[in-house]
């Protein structure tokens, strides 16, 4: 589409308990921003119904270039997948202002 430039979208769904460390990691790895929504669901760790504190999930999405996306995906895989309920996926999208999402120097 006119005006849009290719960009990666990384989505991470995990336990609300790690929202803050996750966000810090993502920014440290070069992302310029992220967006979080509350979520609930089910997966290999059973249902997470967001009925109370320990049971809440979040959905974080990050627009970034391919390099950063790779770094984020690799890091969360190593740091969180073993011990936390979590899924992550990456998609190709188009953004308006590509410079806004390029790796921080």
């Amino acid at each position: 589409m006119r005006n849009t430039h290719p960009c990666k979208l990384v989505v991470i769904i995990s336990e609300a308990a790690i929202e803050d460390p996750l966000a810090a990691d993502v920014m440290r790895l070069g992302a310029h921003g992220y967006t979080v929504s509350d979520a609930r669901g089910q997966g290999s760790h059973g249902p997470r119904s967001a009925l109370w504190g320990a049971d809440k999930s979040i959905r974080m999405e990050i627009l970034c270039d391919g390099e950063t996306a790779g770094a984020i995906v690799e890091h969360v895989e190593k740091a969180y997948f073993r011990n936390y309920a979590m899924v992550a996926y990456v998609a190709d999208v188009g953004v308006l202002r590509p410079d806004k999402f390029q790796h921080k120097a």
Partner: protein
Amino acid sequence: MDAIPLFFALGFAARLTRSDLKIPAQLYEALSIYLLIAIGLKGGMELARQDALHILPQAIAVIGMGLLIPLLAFPILYKLGRLDRFNAAAIAGHYGSVSVVTFAVGVDFLIARGVEFETYLPLFLVLLELPGIAVGILLARMGGDWRSIRWGTLAHEIFLGKSMVLLGGGLLIGWIAGPKGLAPLEPFFFDLFKGVLCLFLLEMGLVAASQAGALRTSGAFLVGFAIAMPVIGALVGIAFALGIGLSAGGALLLATLASSASYIAAPAAMRIAVPEANPGLSITAALVITFPFNILVGIPLYNVLVGLAYGS
């Protein structure tokens, strides 16, 4: 009959029968914020009436009790129950810390029976929140990989977790403002307390039942532990109460604190500090078994034990 266990039972039954009843997540948080502040304020207000020098040695002993209990629980879980170190330590930490709502039910139990108690006991609630969690974390990390711990995050999670801030902050405000400063807050923070507690217990019943499925996989040992450990804790609590010279009412509350297991502060802290532990195990033990056991059976039982110990 007292309404408190009935509300818990209603929530439990609603969830077991798969009713669509849900307490909105933010209402749950609002209720817990209210309860934590209200308990803190009450304790702080009473503290303002006390002689600090008199309480200091008691406070130190109570912290010692908080350090001791997880050290009792850990070998039971690790040796007897053959849980791995992480899970044994995490569960021990939950039992070392305390349950605010169980404490509130204990207070209500005494008030309903007209039994006197040291009104500054919420101070001990605040003091007992952390030591057990800290010991649990240390037990998990012993002989292990200390470097992987994010100490900063962890210290924050524990010392500045929301239950510490609200309970401790409420205590401080109550202490500074004193009975006169708090008088205009009474209709909100004190008169409504028991009603709010009932709503919270409805929610606790829902949550406990939603976790009850985990009972099948957690094994008989954990169930036994979650019933035996509060009784052991209560006995320790009574012994300490005798040692520091609390009244019989105070002894029941200290026993209640010692017997209770945290299911708000501890799970949050352990999830960060001991992520290797399966949170399902500690929550099943603390919330699905120990919490209702204490509310329904434990507190009256400890009252009998206190009666025996105090010869009344």
